């Protein structure tokens, strides 16, 4: 994998690093919501999500020139965000064991099981919320066009013909993009949450 694989990310980072205000706004609008949701998925605490996403973005303002495009910009930001989360727990003198990362697949398994359970039970409802956040983090890791096509298909309930109309492409192209997006979703899911997650998708 070479840096050229993330050329658009690299270009954006460079423009922000040299003080381009339009690029800064583009960067903030693209990455703040995703980082916020990434942090929120950690423990469901909105104040914690705000603090760590803000600390991450403030920290990278002086470091974007160091981004080399070897991973996607969001992956790079997530790594810095993880460090900020750890720093937060250290400052709060909190036992990290009490903040079990949601990435752990047994947590994920329990959360996924909630999909087939009733939502009346508060514990089950809470798991359902965790699942939603996990899925949203996966979607945030996908390219915007993949995310959009999946949301059109599964949230808006659009047929492929309607998706093709929205995207301005042929039905065949829309079907192909949807297929790629599903595979990308699965890969990102497994990348983030481990191979057990892959097995869960077969259940």
């Amino acid at each position: 994998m070479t840096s050229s694989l993330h050329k658009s990310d690299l270009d954006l980072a460079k423009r922000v690093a040299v003080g381009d205000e339009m690029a800064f706004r583009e960067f903030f609008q693209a990455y703040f919501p995703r980082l916020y949701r990434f942090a929120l998925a950690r423990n469901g605490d909105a104040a914690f999500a705000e603090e760590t996403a803000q600390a991450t973005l403030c920290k990278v303002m002086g470091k974007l020139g160091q981004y080399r495009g070897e991973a996607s910009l969001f992956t790079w930001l997530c790594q810095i965000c993880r460090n900020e989360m750890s720093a937060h727990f250290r400052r709060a003198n909190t036992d990290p064991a009490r903040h079990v990362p949601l990435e752990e697949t047994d947590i994920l398994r329990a959360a996924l099981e909630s999909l087939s359970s009733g939502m009346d039970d508060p514990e089950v409802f809470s798991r359902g919320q965790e699942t939603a956040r996990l899925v949203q983090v996966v979607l945030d890791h996908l390219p915007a066009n993949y995310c959009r096509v999946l949301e059109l298909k599964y949230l808006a309930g659009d047929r492929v013909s309607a998706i093709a109309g929205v995207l301005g492409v042929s039905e065949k192209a829309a079907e192909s993009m949807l297929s790629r997006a599903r595979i990308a979703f699965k890969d990102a899911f497994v990348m983030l949450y481990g191979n057990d997650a892959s097995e869960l998708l077969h259940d």
Partner: protein
Amino acid sequence: MTSNKTSDGAAGSDPSEHHELTPSEMDMIGQLIRNSGQREAIPELVERRVYAKVEAAFREATAARRRLKTRLWAMAAAVLVAIGAGIAMQMTLGPQPVGDPVSFARVSVVRGAPVADGAALGVGAAVDIGSALETGVGARLTLILGDGATIRLDEKSRLTVQSADRLELVRGAVYVDSGPKAVASNRVVVTPFGDVHELGTQFEVRSAPDVLRVAVREGSVELKKAGIDANRLQAETGLDLRADGSVRFFDIEASDNYWAWAETMAPQFTLEAATVYDYLVWVARETGRELVISQDKSSQALKNSQLHGSIEGLSPEDSLAVVLPTTRFASDIVVSKTTIRIR
């Protein structure tokens, strides 16, 4: 599992390198996404709060890089100090007031493409009473009024000049600076939540659909709303008034990064022939620092020292790195986050 990256950053975007998903996998993916619902939206106030902090960090990083570049330039720049008693001219601090009686104000600083009644606004343009000013994404605007006060409009804002003393903030944020020698003013910023009466000050009013924020940097303002007691706010305090009537008070330092956007819209200071004292007063005011001069003789020396050159294009903060090293006071001036102290 394989995971390949492509130019668009997709994970596994070439299906030829993957096995096809089974129907049950596709079902599970659909079920996961449907159950998760729309991705969680970020509350507007949270986004705005974080944006202000991150934007300040962005500007600081940009300024630090620029300072590095200008340090060498500054040594050779034509920012010279003529020292000697009696040679300092009487300078007007900050922007010159506008005398045109038919105009409400003139445009002093422009970022992006602000408009008045749909027409583009440039530096020097007159703004009349009745004008509706609008700034889109990335656009900001500073006006200088006839009494020397400045009005700065943040991005994504709309402000209507109802009369010489009455401004209606429809949305977004406006920063009002009545100047360092402000006299009593009848100026009012009208919002759907209530009216903010200026009492000689620097303050910001920010209006969103569900909350009104008033923050005071210097002086004081009074928020009046039908049915509630007037809320008088002093310097370095603020309040959030929500649509449900609840009020939250908070403290905010004059030098807090919250004010960074307004600082970037400061009217140009004319350095040529200004005294070091006037320059420092301007920087201190625009950056929310306290100017502390320990001895009378220092104050007099600063007032007798004249500057030459230009700081065009530099923010008040950035200009310090250019101007101070060229003065004979460089070793006596200590700049911290909250003060400019002259020994």
